[in-house]
């Protein structure tokens, strides 16, 4: 089942939400593989289940059934702290909007993942400078995040996702609130960040222009994922 080149392997994944009005099936037997170094865009209409899949992959929620192998390790029922531990080690997240911590500076925002990962204080500053340089926003290090432009905020969010050197970047509509120019800049950044061949990118988007820049594209419809194309 496991292949060293795969970082994520999902088989027959289902997710059903139980509500007072009845059960709502969101994922209906999803299969998905993600290799190290590749970029996968998941397209689909609102409510189709693409974000739910991303959150299951990111260990924010557990599936109703199915198999999820992360870097060769089968993940079964885990407690919250074990999930947090894996999140710290494997994933960097970028959300659609307002995903920076209010009333904090860029430095403080980027410091949190390092604190939770147990990075000692003297190494944090170095790592933050290095990462901000990588996303070309180092000059804003001591600025309050709420004073940055939308594009700058999203660059900081990308920097925060990268700071712990994750193996997978999960992005939930990262360009949803940006104009096309800034969207392209963010995509440039993502693709540059995974160019080492070790980091994978899984992003959920509505924007075909964004999806077209990824190496693979999948389409989600009614809880079922279908591969629609790949680029060399």
């Amino acid at each position, binding site marked *: 089942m496991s292949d060293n080149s795969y970082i994520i392997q999902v088989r027959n994944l289902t997710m059903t939400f139980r509500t007072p009005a009845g059960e709502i099936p969101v994922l209906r037997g999803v299969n998905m593989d993600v290799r190290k170094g590749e970029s996968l865009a998941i397209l689909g209409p609102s409510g189709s289940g693409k974000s739910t899949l991303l*959150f299951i992959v990111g260990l924010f929620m557990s599936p109703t059934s199915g198999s999820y192998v992360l870097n060769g390790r089968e993940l079964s029922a885990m407690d919250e*702290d074990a999930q*947090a531990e894996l*999140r710290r080690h494997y994933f960097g997240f970028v959300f659609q909007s307002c995903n920076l911590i*209010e009333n904090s500076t860029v430095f403080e925002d980027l410091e*949190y993942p390092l604190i*939770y990962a147990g990075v000692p*204080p003297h190494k944090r500053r170095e790592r933050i400078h290095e990462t901000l340089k990588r996303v070309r926003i180092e000059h804003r290090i001591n600025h309050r995040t709420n004073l940055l432009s939308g594009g700058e905020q999203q660059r900081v969010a990308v920097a925060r996702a990268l700071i*712990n050197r994750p193996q997978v970047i999960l992005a939930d509509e990262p360009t949803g609130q940006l104009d096309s120019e800034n969207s392209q800049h963010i995509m440039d950044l993502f693709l540059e960040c995974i160019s080492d061949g070790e980091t994978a990118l899984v992003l959920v988007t509505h924007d075909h222009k964004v999806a077209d820049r990824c190496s693979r594209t999948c389409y989600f419809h009614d809880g079922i994922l279908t591969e629609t194309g790949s680029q060399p």
Partner: protein
Amino acid sequence: MITPRDLLSIGIRQVIRHRNRYYAGIIAIALGTCGFIVIMTTGENIKSNINRDLDLLGGATMVKATFRRDIPGCSRTSFKPETVEAIRQLPGVAMASLSGIKDALASASVGGREFGFMLVAVDDVFWSAGSYTPRVGRFFNRDDIAEHRKVCVLGSVLANRIFGHLPAPGKLLLIDRDYYEIIGYLEGTGTGDMNQFAYLPITTAMARISGMSPKNKLYIRCSTWDDVAAVAASIPEAVGRAQGNKGLQVDMAAAQLKHIKRIAWWIRLFVAISILATLGLGGTGIWYGMMTAVRSRTREIGLKKAMGATRGDIMAQFLTESLCLSIGSTIVGTLLGGLAMLVVSALLHSSPPPGLFLGGVAISITISIALGVGAGYYPSAHAAGLEVISAVRFE
């Protein structure tokens, strides 16, 4: 797991950044702590001052021990010096004063006229035991007693009767065919009939005045009204051990004492409830502030969990913020309390022992930790239990 150093720096930073939300709680805890420290450090001095003032009005903390002269075999019994010393050593005794009285009226001769009056022999602590202050001049000191000096203090009513006014101290007065220098006059609240008496040092009177009664009266001033009953109960045993207690009678103002104790109990209850209510309000302020913080920072909590924070990390962060708030407020209250203590002590002319202040600070910090944990626990647990997705998407 987040380190204590990071927790503290994040906690302090968050409290400072969100301080507007916490002002009410901070003020309430600071005031409660200030009140607690003032009461704890100066309470005993305030109580002593109330005691003294009450004594001026009625001698509520005074116990009187007398050898009755109407009991056969006791008519000439005096308190021995070692008995007086033993009583001074009893717990709760602030001072004890020995006195005697001339059996018959003494007489003074001025301008060919004779005046009769009561003559009382007292020691140097008699004045402070009764909380008396001289209107003019001074009272007897230790040297007057030790050297058997021929000095006297007159009640101001007696002096006016004899001279028509209060002559300057230093004037000589002929009492029972011997001259004594007038060194001061007694007058003031609570002196009553004592304004009509003349006073001689007990050593001088016993040596020079004929017809003095034995030193059979001992006035014992207790430290506070709480000590009166215990002191009164222990006197017969102490006297019995030192010289035998046959004919000893111990009197105290039991009815007055009961009223005073009741009033004091109500005052204490009122003060304790006020401090508790203030601290309770502070705790509620912190609780409300923290709940508001958790709600307004729901997305932050979700983001932190997404970054890898565990349930324990989030819980510890909010509990630390709550503790920073309560301990910070207590530090402000301690500074205010220390300042207020200095002012109150200066007004009362007293200086509380430093250990009392440090004890007050230690208790305040302990209370503030309990308050911080108590008020912050639920909001912190609520924050820690939030689900990542709903927290991140919270509007």
